[in-house]
């Protein structure tokens, strides 16, 4: 029984490493860890069902163990950004202000054809119209168009409407300040400190803070554990 447990642990870790090595191109909408669990659970279940010589516990224990590992890894990821990055990776910006980041494309092993195909699937035929194109951790492609290429909305047509702006980015995630987001917004740490002071928060009290290049921000404070449970 312990052998099955240790084998499952090793195979689980090995497949996560393999899928992370294979990169985002191999993934659909599932996070790498979820994909591992899906593949392994389906195979183990088949083995336990097909081979009567294998005790049922040899099928049940690995499946339970896999689900436990998945829950524990996702719980760890909830508390640690580092774990999240290790297990799921990070979103990659491959087009910024109409400029392709070739280095990112090489790292993701995305060809120009792959990228153009993904853009066309989003009804974008001209790279110059793209403000941001991001490859998400699931391998999905997100595109944010420049204001002049965006379809007009009621908000844009109103007098004083902003006419479309660059998208807001996450400035504070679960209490951790993201320096690169400050750079993107052309803001200084002093500005952030002042805003938080005015709002009456310390960075560690903030669950989520988003901000755009016009310094328009949104703060979601952390709920106390007791309140969150209620």
């Amino acid at each position, binding site marked *: *029984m312990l052998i099955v447990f240790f084998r499952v642990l090793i195979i689980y870790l090995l497949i996560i490493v393999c899928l992370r090595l294979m990169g985002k191109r191999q993934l659909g909408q599932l996070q790498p860890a979820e994909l591992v669990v899906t593949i392994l659970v389906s195979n183990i279940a088949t083995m336990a069902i097909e081979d009567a*010589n294998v005790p049922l516990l040899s099928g049940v224990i690995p499946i339970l163990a896999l689900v436990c590992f998945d829950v524990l890894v996702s719980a760890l990821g909830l508390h640690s950004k580092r774990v999240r990055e290790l297990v799921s990776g990070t979103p990659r910006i491959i087009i910024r202000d109409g400029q392709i980041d070739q280095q990112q494309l090489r790292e993701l092993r995305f060809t120009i054809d792959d990228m153009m195909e993904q853009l066309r699937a989003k009804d974008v035929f001209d790279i110059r119209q793209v403000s941001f194109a991001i490859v998400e951790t699931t391998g999905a492609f997100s595109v944010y168009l420049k204001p002049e290429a965006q379809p007009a909305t009621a908000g844009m047509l109103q007098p004083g409407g902003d006419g479309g702006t660059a998208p807001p980015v996450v400035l504070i995630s679960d209490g951790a300040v993201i320096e690169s987001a400050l750079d993107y917004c052309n803001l200084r740490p002093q500005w952030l400190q002042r805003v938080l002071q005015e709002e009456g928060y310390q960075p560690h009290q903030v669950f989520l803070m988003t901000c755009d290049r016009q310094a328009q921000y949104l703060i979601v404070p952390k709920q106390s554990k007791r309140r969150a449970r209620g």
Partner: protein
Amino acid sequence: MKRVWIALGLVAAILAGGIFSLWHLERITREMGNSLEQLSLAVEQQDDARILELALMFQEQWQQFEPGIRRYIHHDELESITGGSARLAALARYQDYGELAAETDRMRHLVNHILESERPTLKNIF
């Protein structure tokens, strides 16, 4: 958070179950090993009544233990011991002691192999 505690509880239960099954298997193989040792000694001494008694006792002992370990050990291995234990009793009854001695050694090897193959050693894991 409740799911995390359930997952931790399950992992603890799996580890505890694994350790318990290993302890249980060790106890069974020790008892079976002792019985086979006594059978070997009786064969050397050519004690007909004792040989038959020990061979039948081994078969009965195995029938008692087998359903318990069947839950977590590959059934193929257990079936070869079940067949072997019946053969031991038959060989003792017909007093074919040369064959009985060889079969006793084979059974000892099979019983030890079950325990060895369940130990979480590096050799077994990889």
